[in-house]
């Protein structure tokens, strides 16, 4: 392309980073809330809730940031990026995850609370299905333990946040938990299709094509990550170099700037 690192190109690149981040954030929120409105507008017990949009958005942030931690730890080990991805990064991610996970828990509890507060028989029946009927009654505690109860208390301790192995396994737990959350959110209300309990459809049991499609989904995403990591530089080296340049010097050329100065 002819990028040669002129002042103009660097300046545009820095501004573009900020600009695109600002633009992508409302898109992220809108995409996830549109998906959640698709559920909420279905007038299906268990889905018909006004808390869904923020619940889905924060759930996506929770599982997304955890996935970032998992992928970071994996790539750090595979590509020997120990000098670039440091415990400081995982520490920062852990702090962020504590806040995000707790916000997500608030919306989860709101969904549960509003579900049972109005005492709508079908809504209560769906929650009974989720909480007391196998296999959901087994999956539900696993989901809650893996999505919040186990990882968040661990992330409260600095030494665990700076431990790459702990961060890898806890963030992986969150991804398992958040996958189960969506499963429990979607499947039980669909199992409750009729107004009378004797008309309930048989419990949903995944069939081999569904297992294959689910595994293929995981495989496709992993494949995409690996292809990206193979083709593109996963660490922008100028960031590292810039950090080295600005680390010890306050005065650069003819201007005096803070050590972490950035356009």
């Amino acid at each position, binding site marked *: *392309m002819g*990028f040669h*690192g002129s002042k103009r190109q660097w300046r545009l690149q820095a501004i573009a980073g900020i600009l695109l981040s600002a633009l992508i954030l409302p898109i992220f929120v809108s995409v996830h809330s549109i998906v959640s409105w698709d559920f909420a507008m279905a007038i299906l017990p268990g889905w018909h809730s006004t808390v869904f949009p923020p619940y889905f958005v924060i759930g996506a942030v929770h599982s997304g940031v955890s996935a970032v931690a998992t992928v970071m730890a994996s790539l750090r080990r595979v590509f020997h990026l120990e000098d670039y991805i440091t415990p400081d990064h995982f520490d920062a991610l852990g702090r962020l995850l504590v806040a995000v996970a707790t916000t997500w828990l608030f919306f989860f509890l709101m969904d549960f609370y509003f579900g049972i507060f109005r005492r709508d028989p079908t809504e209560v029946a769906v929650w009974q299905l989720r909480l007391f009927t196998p296999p959901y009654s087994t999956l539900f505690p696993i989901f809650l333990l893996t999505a919040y109860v186990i990882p968040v208390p661990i992330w409260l301790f600095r030494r665990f946040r700076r431990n790459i192995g702990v961060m890898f396994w806890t963030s992986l737990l969150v991804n398992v938990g958040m996958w189960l959350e969506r499963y429990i959110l979607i499947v039980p209300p669909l199992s409750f299709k009729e107004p009378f309990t004797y008309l309930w459809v048989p419990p949903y049991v995944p069939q081999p094509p569904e297992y294959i499609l689910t595994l293929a989904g995981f495989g496709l995403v992993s494949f995409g990550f690996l292809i990206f990591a193979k083709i593109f530089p996963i660490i922008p080296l100028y960031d590292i170099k810039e950090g080295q340049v600005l680390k010890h010097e306050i005065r650069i050329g*003819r201007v005096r700037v803070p050590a972490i100065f950035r*356009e």
Partner: protein
Amino acid sequence: MAETASDALLGVFREPDSVATALDSLRAAGFGGHELTILSGVPYPEGAFGEEPERHRLYVFPFMGAACGFAVALLLVIGTQISYPLVTGGKPILSIPPMVNVMYEGTMLGAVLFTVICIIFESRLPNLTPMPYDPRISEGYIGVLVTRADGRTAAAERALREAGALDIVTHPNAQLAT
């Protein structure tokens, strides 16, 4: 006149202070800001070398893109619904609430696409004109590229050397030899 490799030369420096001195000397020798380009492997703060602020139109393009995206999305939702007028539940064919979603997404998509195009356009990419370059620049050295120096090459080279240039590169493929 577009610059070519034959009338360009590159001074390679180690220290930012020397680059600032070189720019002062080159300006004193009659070179304008548009003829001087600083190359570096990392982004330096604005004004670090005493250079003139860069003018760009990056902030205009997202708005242009948003306007175009909004218009396209509006045409899309109105066009498709009028082409296939299926009345559902007695609701109007053109109902604003469901149209807002598509228009919002179209607006944001236009803004993002135009921003990306603008970054490429304003960065003057793709730049296929071969220019002098030194691989040491990507390792932390700083280059001062003087373009349109035809007839003033000696003055430019003298200014660069007096400011402390470690090397002067004039050939576009010099990087292959080093």
